């Protein structure tokens, strides 16, 4: 007997129980989603923080759960804005809540092996300078691999969704219509993705840096319509003034996680090796494109397959280094906030090191890089201001643009000596 209205609960170390409906369970059971169990959230970070073995699978469930809490809070705090600016009625809000849940659940289904570490090997789009992003793979998988389960489930009789509706929200297409407003919940500065990964990565890595007051942020999140000459006036996400310190905590959590975990010097070295090993392993050095003809080939790539190939010696010198933990050594780093004078010194050091320089990695190129994003705050008497106007800490927080230099372990001693010579001279 079919039981389309049955609910299920999944235990989560971050959120307690995550409730899913029968439709979402059917999507989760699909091979394209189950593949996320074989893609680690933080690549080789467990070689620095041994607990960081978690996968995109549990993160995706957490993002759906967090997005739902955010959605409900925005509707509660900003019903008038949603009605007047985006013409929502109750049916529209009920419909888009489910749409946001599906988009949040599926936002990472397009990740390649070892998550962001592999993203640099996504191919270029035809005749364009920009490369594909994993979000475009997620949208393609929704369109071509999950359409039947999204469109065909009995519960969809209540919504009439096409797979295209979910894909449009994920990739930012005009076909998402006024529902694009909710895209900030899936991919924005106050998104459920960020809120979940900070808490989850922190938990599994065994650090406290990513913790913030999730429920305070959720309680105060709202839809606002910024006015004034600098703004186009489109509604966007913000927080009520009572949430200033919650939001401040979110921004600082990201900052600390970047310096302590995501841009940890040894973690970055493992990303370098993985990237090079994958280049050796992949036909043509890049992943297949997110097209109907190449998508199956892409989906066949996961951590297990890459690890197997590295174990067989297919990853070249870098694969060998990964297997033996014989990673490049950090020999010099610029300050976390690097100024032009620091870059000038960096050039001198690079010149002195010469061929001993094995890799150069910049925080600004990292997938976890921080940016100048700022959260609008809806203050007293309807006054709008950026979060940094309420927080002297954030007002003075500059972006981390640190540069790390590496040498092979066997060259590290000689390279460090050359670095010291330059530093002593200056």
């Amino acid at each position, binding site marked *: 007997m079919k039981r389309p209205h049955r609910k299920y609960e999944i235990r989560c170390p971050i959120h307690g129980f995550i409730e899913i409906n029968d439709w979402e369970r059917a999507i989760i059971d699909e091979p394209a989603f189950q593949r996320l169990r074989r893609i680690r959230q933080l690549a080789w970070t467990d070689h620095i923080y041994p607990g960081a073995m978690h996968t995109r699978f549990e993160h995706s469930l957490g993002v759906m759960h967090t997005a739902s809490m955010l959605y409900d809070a925005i509707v509660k705090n900003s019903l008038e804005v949603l009605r007047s600016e985006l013409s929502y009625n109750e049916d529209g809000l009920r419909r888009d809540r489910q749409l946001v849940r599906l988009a949040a659940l599926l936002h990472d289904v397009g990740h390649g092996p070892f998550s962001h570490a592999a993203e640099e090997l996504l191919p270029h789009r035809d005749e364009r300078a*920009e490369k594909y992003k994993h*979000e475009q793979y997620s949208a393609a998988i929704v369109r071509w691999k999950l359409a039947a389960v999204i469109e065909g489930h009995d519960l969809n009789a209540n919504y009439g969704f096409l797979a295209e509706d979910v894909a449009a929200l994920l990739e930012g297409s005009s076909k998402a219509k006024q529902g694009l407003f909710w895209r*900030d919940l899936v991919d924005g500065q106050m998104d459920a993705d960020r809120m979940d990964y900070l808490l989850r990565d922190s938990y599994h890595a065994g650090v406290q840096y990513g913790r913030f007051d999730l429920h305070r942020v959720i309680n105060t999140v709202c839809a606002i319509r910024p006015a004034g000459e600098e703004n186009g006036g489109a509604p966007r996400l913000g927080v009520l003034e009572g949430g200033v310190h919650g939001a401040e905590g979110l921004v600082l959590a990201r900052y600390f996680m970047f310096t302590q975990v995501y841009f940890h010097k040894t973690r970055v070295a493992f990303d370098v090796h993985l990237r090079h090993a994958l280049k050796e392993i992949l036909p043509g050095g890049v992943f297949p494109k997110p097209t109907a003809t190449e998508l199956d080939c892409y989906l066949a790539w996961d951590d297990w397959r890459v690890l197997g190939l590295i174990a067989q010696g297919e990853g070249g010198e870098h694969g060998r280094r990964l297997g033996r933990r014989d990673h490049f050594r950090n020999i010099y780093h610029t300050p976390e906030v690097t100024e032009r004078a620091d870059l000038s010194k960096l050039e001198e050091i690079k010149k002195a090191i010469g061929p001993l320089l094995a890799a150069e990695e910049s925080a600004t190129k990292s997938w976890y890089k921080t940016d100048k994003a700022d959260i609008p705050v809806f203050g007293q008497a309807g006054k709008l201001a950026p979060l940094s106007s309420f927080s002297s800490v954030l007002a003075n927080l500059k972006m981390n643009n640190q540069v790390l230099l590496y040498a092979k372990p066997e060259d590290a001693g000689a390279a460090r000596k050359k670095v010291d010579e330059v530093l002593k001279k200056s």
Partner: protein
Amino acid sequence: MTIQVDARTPLIAYLAEHTPAKWIGRTALMKYCYFLQTLRMVPLGYNFSLYSYGPFDSAVLSDLGEAEALGMITETPLPTGYGYKIKNALSDEDMQELAGRFLKEHKADVDWVIEEFGGGATSDLELDSTIIYVDREEREAGRKLSMEDLTHRVREVKPRFPESTIRKHVEALSDKELLLAIES
């Protein structure tokens, strides 16, 4: 010693210096970069996607952060409301050193964007960039559409703009031959 920076960061300083407005804000910066890449095919390497406030890529804000850290621009919040003033902090000599090679190749494109879109209201930039985004989506899909259809599609994304306003912008962009999917 000459330092190496991505041309995208001094470009922000150049845009801030040459905008006809009193200053450049984040929305205008985002849309200028979108126009440069989409209308003039300047290979900036951004990956724009559509939000309710128009085409956006957080990498532009990262570049803004780096430009500030490297002392190329200053950014201060507006005294009232939600927004920022971005101002150039580079001397002409430094601008030439950091962006000279990029500007030699693309100065005409950058100046064209400033000439065409500088000085307009931010809401106009948001609307124009959204119209162009929808037009390019259709073009990429190999479809043609009428001005009425394009107006309707944009209004579905931005219901707060009156249809007549959107139509006026579609016509203006079409007259300048900046739309590629409109039926002739």
